[in-house]
């Protein structure tokens, strides 16, 4: 019964009588997968068609309304070997896609304009200009204007809009000088053409637009790809809850469709997907994702449970609550609001450069104008010079300097399993000098494993494994995995206690230490593994105790040791002192604090900030969320609580900790390249501006200088790809 699913939330209606659903499909890599999925789905009765998008790993299925039940599609895909996960495409998604398409359209138009104007300009440079009467030149200039003006009017809109927004907010950004430069270049050129003059800058204006739009487009596409990937992940991980309907029917429902006041069933071994109050049932709850504490907590009717915790032993009926009113969540939300406010004052490198650059350029142009007037040149000539200065300083290279590096570095990080939530995160990562780790779920693996397998006889382990397979308890799963057990024993489960069975005519039990009467055997194991949960195997004449704990990530020791060479490392955990000391000892970290509440973590971060340190915090729990938001920069594992993920600047995938070290290395390099690029732009201007002021800049020189500097900056940015190849 509980396997019936309610998917109505995900079904769209693109046309009358047609229903459609978008699915994320895991494991499509090649043409064969496309053919298998599309053909396999089309053979299903009622399906109108299926289309795979290999780049985004998604399938869109359309069927005749009412001809089939949506879950059938999921089953069909499952049978084909491609587990699929529905997701609701939201409006933000299509807005971003529209923005990307628009930039591509503008880029196409700008490229068309630039190429055709260049066609005319090159022939002028090549000698068409030498015609003694200026008829040919004027004709070419008019033709250039005919192409350039409408193209620029269309393609420059993104810059004009952004500049207008900045000016309305009484600030400036790079788009202000860009818009001004393009407008003046075109205006001056029309003016020169009317006056039968030689110099027109139609080609410079169009080329400038083309280069800048190319940079903008790449930037936008990188952002959308990263976000698409994050949406896919969240669809795959999407929590479901078993909703209990009034008639007593139980249906698996996506969490987005659950309303406050609903009643949900949480089975033993399930992750709790909602915040709410227990109505019925008793169990133990593993709250490590919420508090960092590794010992489980007993719950009973009336107790609060939080999303992200794991129900260990008994089935619970939970009443979903609208506003989370638990003291812990309240505290977390209040701290979050404050922390977010404090950080929004960060100013990006490019904006800081723009603040210096824009007034400097405009003052220089003004000085050139006044200077030439005072020297006795006519106001027309002086104006031409001033506008030339503005054109030549138009921040083509500067506009590319930072975004190009961001795109390349974000791509390099993405290949190493790290997703950036924002571009400025890269800059803040580069500034970090202290790394603060949470313990549970961050340094340790989110899933528990058997810690003392080496101390246990193979026969005992095999027996325990077979017994454990019969249980739904998450700790039992770890024992079954360690034993490699395949065949469950016929066993009886006692909720909250364990399982019992008959082995070779003798009764055996696997379960809590108390129930198995194994306190004596448990004491030394508990002393050796203070952070472990213990379960015991009771045989007639003796007992064996298993320590199940969240082991360190496989490369944690190596990565932390490598980072310790250039960063200060600290561990701040909500777990008990002995548990934290054990992990800190294994990693060789001397500075750690245990038993911390969310506010304590923030206090520690404040102390670090007051000492002038810039902290990177790596954490996953609900209790880390305020600290993640308050820190200079933050990273979460992909297994983190949703609220922590939303606050983190970046997320890392997989079991290994290496992406965190990669992030620090690549971001440091990216920042160096950004600064290099900014200096390259400054050097370019130091050479080009005097030439412009003294009137030596011709359209040919302007075209060469602009494209030359842009290409140089872009090539330099490519170095952020990081020479060390991504390890698979």
């Amino acid at each position: 019964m509980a396997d019936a699913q309610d998917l109505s939330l995900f079904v769209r209606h693109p046309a009358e009588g047609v229903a459609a659903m978008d699915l994320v499909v895991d494991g499509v890599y090649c043409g064969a997968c496309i053919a298998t999925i599309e053909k396999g789905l089309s053979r299903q009765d009622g399906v109108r068609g299926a289309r795979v998008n290999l780049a985004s790993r998604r399938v869109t299925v359309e069927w005749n309304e009412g001809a089939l039940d949506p879950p059938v599609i999921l089953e069909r895909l499952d049978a084909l070997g491609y587990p699929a996960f529905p997701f609701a495409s939201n409006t933000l998604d299509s807005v971003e896609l529209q923005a990307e398409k628009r930039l591509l359209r503008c880029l196409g138009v700008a490229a068309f304009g630039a190429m055709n104007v260049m066609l005319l300009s090159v022939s002028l440079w090549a000698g068409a200009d030498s015609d003694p009467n200026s008829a040919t030149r004027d004709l070419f200039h008019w033709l250039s204007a005919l192409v350039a003006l409408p193209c620029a009017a269309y393609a420059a809109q993104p810059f004009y809009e952004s500049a207008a927004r900045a000016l309305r907010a009484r600030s400036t950004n790079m788009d202000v000088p860009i818009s001004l430069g393009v407008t003046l270049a075109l205006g001056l050129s029309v003016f020169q053409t009317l006056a039968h003059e030689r110099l027109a800058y139609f080609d410079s204006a169009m080329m400038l637009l083309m280069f800048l739009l190319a940079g903008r487009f790449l930037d936008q596409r990188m952002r959308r790809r990263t976000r698409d990937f994050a949406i896919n992940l969240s669809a795959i991980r999407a929590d479901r809850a078993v909703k209990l309907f009034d008639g007593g029917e139980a249906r698996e429902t996506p969490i987005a469709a659950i309303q406050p006041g609903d009643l949900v069933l949480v089975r033993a071994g399930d992750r709790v997907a909602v915040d709410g109050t227990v109505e019925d049932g008793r169990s133990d709850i593993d709250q490590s994702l919420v508090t960092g504490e590794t010992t489980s907590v007993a719950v009973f009717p009336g107790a609060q449970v939080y999303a992200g915790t794991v129900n260990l032993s008994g089935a619970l009926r939970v009443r979903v609550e609208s506003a989370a009113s638990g003291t812990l969540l309240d505290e977390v939300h209040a701290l979050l609001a404050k922390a977010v406010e404090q950080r929004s004052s960060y100013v990006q490198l490019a904006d800081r450069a723009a603040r210096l650059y824009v007034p400097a350029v405009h003052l220089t142009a003004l000085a050139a104008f006044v200077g030439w007037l005072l020297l006795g040149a006519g106001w027309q000539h002086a104006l031409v010079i001033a506008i030339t200065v503005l054109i030549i300083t138009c921040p083509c290279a500067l506009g590319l300097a930072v975004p190009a590096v961001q795109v390349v570095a974000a791509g390099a990080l993405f290949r190493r399993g790290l997703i950036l939530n924002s571009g400025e995160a890269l800059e803040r990562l580069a500034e970090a000098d202290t790394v603060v780790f949470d313990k549970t779920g961050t340094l340790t693996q989110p899933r528990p494993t058997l810690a003392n397998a080496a101390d246990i006889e193979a026969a005992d382990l095999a027996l325990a494994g077979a017994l454990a397979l019969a249980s739904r308890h998450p700790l039992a799963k770890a024992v079954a995995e360690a034993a490699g057990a395949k065949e469950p024993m016929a066993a009886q489960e006692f909720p909250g206690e364990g399982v019992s069975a008959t082995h070779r005519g003798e009764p055996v039990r696997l379960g809590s230490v108390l129930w198995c009467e194994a306190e004596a055997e448990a004491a030394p194991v508990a002393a050796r593994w203070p952070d472990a949960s213990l379960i015991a195997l009771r045989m007639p004449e003796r007992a064996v105790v298993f320590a199940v704990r969240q082991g360190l990530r496989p490369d944690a020791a190596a990565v932390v040791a490598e980072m310790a060479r250039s960063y200060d490392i600290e561990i701040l955990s909500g777990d008990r002192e002995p548990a934290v000391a054990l992990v800190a000892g294994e990693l060789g970290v001397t500075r750690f604090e245990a038993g911390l509440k969310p506010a304590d973590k923030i206090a520690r971060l404040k102390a670090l900030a007051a000492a002038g340190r810039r902290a990177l915090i790596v954490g996953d729990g609900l209790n880390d969320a305020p600290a993640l938001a308050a820190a200079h920069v933050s990273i979460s594992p992909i297994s983190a609580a949703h609220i922590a993920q939303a606050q983190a600047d970046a997320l890392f995938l997989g079991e290994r900790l290496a992406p965190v070290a990669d992030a620090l290395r690549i971001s440091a390099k990216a920042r160096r390249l950004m600064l290099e690029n900014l200096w390259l732009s400054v050097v370019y201007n130091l050479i080009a501006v005097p030439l412009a002021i003294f009137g030596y800049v011709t359209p040919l020189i302007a075209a060469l200088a602009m494209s030359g500097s842009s290409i140089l900056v872009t090539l330099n940015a490519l170095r952020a790809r990081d020479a060390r190849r991504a390890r698979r």
Partner: protein
Amino acid sequence: MNVLVYLVPAALALGGLGLAAFLWALKHGQFEDLDGAAWRAISDDDLPEDEKG
């Protein structure tokens, strides 16, 4: 220079044709799945049975 009378419009028209083709392709979603398009090109599912290699 009379040659310009038809060469320049011809050049512009060709460029415009290219631009129109690009905008058409963009509007019809030709750039939405570049990876998939690469594989679909070599798929021979649309051929009759006896021509498949």
